[in-house]
């Protein structure tokens, strides 16, 4: 994600260089939005789940909103839109990214995988199958993000032990508290992998 300009950085610039965390949530940042000229849509060509797509998005649109609102892929969830919950995790060129902090317009030519593209046809990805088998979910809202993170961290080789899994999964909040089963599912999937 390092080479991408994130939406957060753009917002910081838009707010006159003020660090976002200091910007009042009401009023000031909205006022700066309004004082900007209305930006026009930009075309972005990217591959999503193996399919080439060209989306016409507002320059300010996050990858998350582009996927959900422009590409109609609503499996990726919005929990905070601030990079703090992990619900929007997708793979970008094989690495996990927080799609709410990634600008869609900077994804030109990129390869994106979302939860809808993880299974191989009817064949669930081993992490998906393990989440079902170990009941690693309750409400299911955090689940797409959990699974995308888990699939990536196994590939990255960060699923060596339970503490390691817990550490590397700590960017994905599960408020239902399904953590014990999430960890068990990842442990199981990583052994099979």
């Amino acid at each position, binding site marked *: 994600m390092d080479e991408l300009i994130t939406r957060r950085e753009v917002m910081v610039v838009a707010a006159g260089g003020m660090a976002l965390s200091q910007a009042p949530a*009401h009023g000031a940042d909205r006022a700066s939005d309004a004082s900007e000229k209305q930006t026009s849509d930009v075309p972005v060509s990217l591959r999503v789940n193996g399919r080439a797509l060209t989306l016409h998005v507002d320059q300010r649109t996050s990858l998350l909103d582009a996927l959900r609102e422009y590409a109609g892929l609503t499996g990726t969830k919005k929990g905070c839109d601030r990079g703090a919950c992990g619900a929007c995790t997708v793979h970008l060129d094989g690495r996990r990214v927080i799609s709410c902090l990634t600008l869609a317009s900077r994804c030109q030519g990129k390869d994106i995988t979302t939860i809808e593209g993880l299974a191989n046809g009817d064949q669930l990805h081993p992490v998906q199958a393990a989440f079902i088998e170990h009941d690693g979910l309750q409400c299911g809202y955090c689940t797409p993000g959990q699974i995308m993170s888990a699939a990536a961290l196994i590939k990255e080789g960060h699923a060596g032990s339970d503490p390691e899994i817990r550490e590397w999964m700590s960017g994905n909040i*599960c408020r239902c508290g399904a953590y014990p089963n999430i960890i068990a599912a990842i442990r199981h999937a990583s052994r099979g992998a």
Partner: protein
Amino acid sequence: MNYIDFSLKVVGTRPIRPDGVDKVTGRAVFAADTRASGMLWGKILRSPHAHANIVSIDTTKAAALKGVFAVVTGQDFPEIASEEAFVGEGPMNFRDLSLNCMARTKVLYEGHALAAVAASTQEIADQALALIDVTYEVLPHVIDVEEAMAPGAPVLHADMFTAGVTPKPETASNISKVVTFKKGDIDAGFAEAEVIVEGRYTTQPVHQAYIEPHACLATYAPDGQVQIHSSSQGHFMIRAYVAKLLGMSISNIRVNPAEIGGGFGGKTLVYLEPVAVTLSKKSGRSVKMQMTREDVFRASGPTSGAAMTVKIGAKKDGTIVAAQQVLKFQAGAFAGSPIGPGCMCGFAMYDLPNVDVVGYDVVSNRPKVAAYRAPGAPITSFAVESLMDELAIKLGIDALTLREKNAAKNGTKTHYGPVHQNIGFTAVLDAVKAHPHWKSPLKEGHGRGLATGFWFNIGGESSAQVHVNEDGTVTAATGSPDIGGSRASIGMMVAEVLGVPATTVRTIVADTASIGFTFLTGGSRVTFATGMAATQAAEKVVEDLKRRAAQTWDIPVDAVEWKDGAAYPAGSNAGAFEPLDLAALALKAGRTGGPILAEVSINAQGAGPGFGAHICDVSVDKETGHVKIERYTAIQDVGKAIHPSYVEGQIQGGAAQGIGWALSEEYIYNSKGLMENAGFLDYRVPVASDMPMIEAVLVEVPNPRHPFGARGVGEVPIVPPMAAIANAIRSATGLRMPDLPMSPPKVRAALDAAG
């Protein structure tokens, strides 16, 4: 019928989650995942002030922005008369709820809605909000509960005169009501006591923090028909509130329940739906709305924070003779904290002769509280169970023995009136005693805490249908949104009655026009009440199937028996016929009376109260003040676990939320009354690396009022954790932490102060 002593084939097993594949593949449809053609995005303008008069709102520029289709303010909403609402969970007033959804003349907290726009994109909607000019007259504000009660505090509502005191006060205040519960003679009780302990405790408001922010999609058609898709714990609740708040008739509103991404009590009110419908009416388009995370924190209800004092008197042998509690609960900007349950639950675990409890419901410039898992009980129990620990220490009695000695049993009269019946508290305490965790020696440097908890659990109105489809498969439909696996548990109960595998039954949540009225999902009522309705509907289907078999065979109905999913002739006298299973009977349905289905609507009574006890080991880092949970065991009487994995999941989830409440979660306000941590970066909920393994131990004392013995399970587990952890910290360090959260800076400060 009652199946408690039957050998069961489906109930008590662990089939895989029926909604699993949808949820791991991204197919599950949550409220924000729905769209409509020509749909607009609705967004809300929220108050930047804690307390202010709205002098003027100018929406001209916003309305003129290209892509904006509607702008609404308080003027677009009807005036609602003050009236108690019995629609959601916990106390609410229709007028207050209307004002909470859209302020009229005054904003009462940061984040209070005061205008809304509908535009073709989210970006344009945000721009439009910034173009609305509002002139405020900022008023003094008050955040803290005791400051709000003090004379001279800024008064939020000029017409709030404390209820429950005589004579009726003549000046308005922030105390909406005072409630009292008395049993025996408290003065005589304390006079008799040989040991008295006292303590003062505070808790902070914490948010349910479901990962799915509130969302809905609403369409108002020109003929006045309204369709709403929304994420809530009760689509009938949404229907009732929208009808009342917008002056519509219920028959014109149809609410479709979306998959719900967590609620925990917080989705038992309306915030967006009346606004979305109003925007849709004005724009002539469908309108989708979704709160931001900041909105969820600032403008949807957390649970109360509280200031409490407790005093307990006992004999030297540990027999408690007097118990007294004063509770001050924050309600948020409008009346209606869970002060009632707060007053009832603290001492409900014990058999006490003399009790005196006084509770205050107090408004201040904070978001209106909403229900959160066992509303009120975790707060009051933190205080009582912390002080019970002090009492045990002072008496030199083991914490478990003290509780055993005073435990409520069947026949114990509670201080709030009812007599406990069919409770399993003693069985829970026995399970604590027998558990390896309780018996294990404490590791060097660790501390161990024990705390117990109680929740009433409720029944109420539920409807369920069971359909035998043309191919012999079964659809069970209910009106209860599934927040804890109830589709699975209901389907399993239906399958058990029909004698078919769990996979034969598919359970769905039907919309408000497709099933009878069903009270919302809350109070741990669904597996109990809706499960009871579904069980009865399945029994009616079995009776009908027997009748159809009898008709087919031309024998009396009594000569037919139903077992293992098929009709058999009952004994050789009945005749020799091949059994007729569901598929065979479904095939003949046209000739035996038409489609096979039964619907049952009930008002379920007899919900079994729930009791739990948690054991917690901690270590405390003396340098940083960081508390680490080393081992955690949650023991609970669940009546009968229909799907044990989901019951364990509820217990682990409730405990996890309790651990967050205990150690890290809180609303932080600055001097202007603005929340400083309205996001997951600064409002810290537990993540994977914070969590210990939580062992859930299921104790099963069947509830005879439910066909399978079930009692509610989802709320009790959030009650004990705060005191269990505080007691463990006391054990590890000798320090009593009376104020939540027991965050590293606070623990360190306490350690430093103790030298």
